[in-house]
């Protein structure tokens, strides 16, 4: 295996875990939400916690809302991704992620907030009340 670190003149490898957050463009009733604002907020949270993040241009997406009789909700999803040192997933960083995800889910009227951490998709469809966040 090539020594990429030496070849690139880089520091020690750290970000081995991919964290990706789905930022929807509509709420669960297909009404537009402030996607740009939520994208910026997500970038700020991931940037502060993990040093960096990238938002990718929207891709057409669909989500089945089982709580509303399986209605299909179409939107143009932005993916915000960050490469994270697994050891940086501390109780504090996870708690801050939780606060952001639950606030976005609640305020943007989402059926589900989706985040991929490593090889797992985590779906959050029940949100903490405001007093807890």
């Amino acid at each position, binding site marked *: 295996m090539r020594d990429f670190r030496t070849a690139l003149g880089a520091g020690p490898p750290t970000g081995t875990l991919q964290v990706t957050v789905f930022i929807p463009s509509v709420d669960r009733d297909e009404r537009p939400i402030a996607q740009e604002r939520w994208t910026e907020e997500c970038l700020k949270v991931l940037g502060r916690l993990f040093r960096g993040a990238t938002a990718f241009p929207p891709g057409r997406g669909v989500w089945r809302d089982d709580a509303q009789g399986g209605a299909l909700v179409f939107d143009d999803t932005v*993916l915000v991704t960050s490469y994270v040192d697994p050891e940086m*997933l501390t109780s504090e960083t996870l708690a801050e992620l939780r606060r952001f995800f639950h606030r976005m889910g609640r305020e943007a009227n989402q059926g589900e907030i989706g985040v*991929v951490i490593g*090889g*797992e998709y985590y*779906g*959050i469809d029940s*949100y903490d009340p405001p007093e807890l966040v």
Partner: protein
Amino acid sequence: MAREKRRSIQEIQEALGARRVVRLDQLPSQGPLDLLQLRAELQRRLRSSGGRPTDPDWSIRRVVPFKEDHWRELEELAAACESGGQNVSPGQLAAVLVETGLRELRRKGLLKAKVR
């Protein structure tokens, strides 16, 4: 920031308050960006000179056998990779996936010959 042990899936699920967890084993890098990257590579490489878009560097055609269910998966994935009116055939997608696999083997030092 204090460093802690690596978190298990269950610990992350509970910490985030997530009701469901879905494993993404099927994707090579286990991330949702794979499909976007694959689609972008196909868009970049497939060029039309009047007929069906193709990669001008593909100069050899061979008959390759597939299992029926694998071919069906290629058809579904090819349909998902279509974008902006550009059609992608399952065979073209298979060619790109073979090249991706060869690149990965080469990166790991398991292939000596240069593969583009």
